[in-house]
């Protein structure tokens, strides 16, 4: 468990103890000092605890481990270890083009305004589908909407390998089309193999650590 999480748990338990004093001895609020303490313990401290807890939970919900904790996502986790550079997700994960501990979030969040909120709402939908409906087989999972190039361009826009790459510049209409999201980065003939979980049993796996 990360140190920050441990510290937050300690703070939560400390706050619980202080609140317990007021529950057991509510009469101490008669004095002026008691009132001030009650305000700190019953109002400010819970807000602080809640805010720190939510912040911690939101950060943890970005981790690769969190995303792969659902059984249905396991093949997608395995696809990050495919020993084939044409597998887009694996190449990004293994070469640290995305942080290994938040690989899923880095590519699948929404980099527009309020994108993180939208990503969390999509996550709630995933929980609903996973627990309250019959989830599809891993290989049948599809994105809710077409993958937006904005997520790729968040990192690649302006990078020399992207802007000056020979393939990207072979057709003068290609880069403008990609930047305008009219031509998908993962369209056929380009970076079309992202996870390809249906064929995982036919590919070689990388044994190293990212």
């Amino acid at each position: 468990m990360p140190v920050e999480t441990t510290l937050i748990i300690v703070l939560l338990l400390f706050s619980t103890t202080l609140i317990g004093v007021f529950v057991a001895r509510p009469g101490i609020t008669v004095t002026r000092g008691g009132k001030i303490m009650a305000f700190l313990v019953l109002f400010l401290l819970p807000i602080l605890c809640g805010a720190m807890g939510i912040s911690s939970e939101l950060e943890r919900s970005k981790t690769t481990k969190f995303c792969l904790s659902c059984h249905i996502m396991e093949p997608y986790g395995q696809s990050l270890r495919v020993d084939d550079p044409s597998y887009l997700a694996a190449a990004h994960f293994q070469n640290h083009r995305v942080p290994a501990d938040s690989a899923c979030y880095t590519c699948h969040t929404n980099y527009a305004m309020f994108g993180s909120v939208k990503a969390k709402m999509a996550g709630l939908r995933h929980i609903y589908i996973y627990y309250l409906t019959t989830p599809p087989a891993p290989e049948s999972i599809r994105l809710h909407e077409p993958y937006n190039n904005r997520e790729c361009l968040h990192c690649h826009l302006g990078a020399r390998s992207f802007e000056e790459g020979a393939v990207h510049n072979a057709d003068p209409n290609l880069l403008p089309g990609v930047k305008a999201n009219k031509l998908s980065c993962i369209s056929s003939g380009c970076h079309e193999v992202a996870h390809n979980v249906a064929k995982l049993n036919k590919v070689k796996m990388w044994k190293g650590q990212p």
Partner: protein
Amino acid sequence: MEGATVKLSENALERRLQISGILLILGLLTESLCLFWARPLSFLAFISVGGVLLLLGIAVYLFSLLTIRHPRQ
């Protein structure tokens, strides 16, 4: 508490403070438990159960301040 069960006060303000405290304790304990697991369900429980209990506890505390005057004053 001293090993005995907590008895709700007969004074209205103190009783509401106790209810507020109990809600807050339940919320904080729920949130503490949820932090032990980095899983989607614990995230959901943190927000929906822990968060709601905390908000209720704070609301009861504020409501008691606004509506009841301390009789010992």
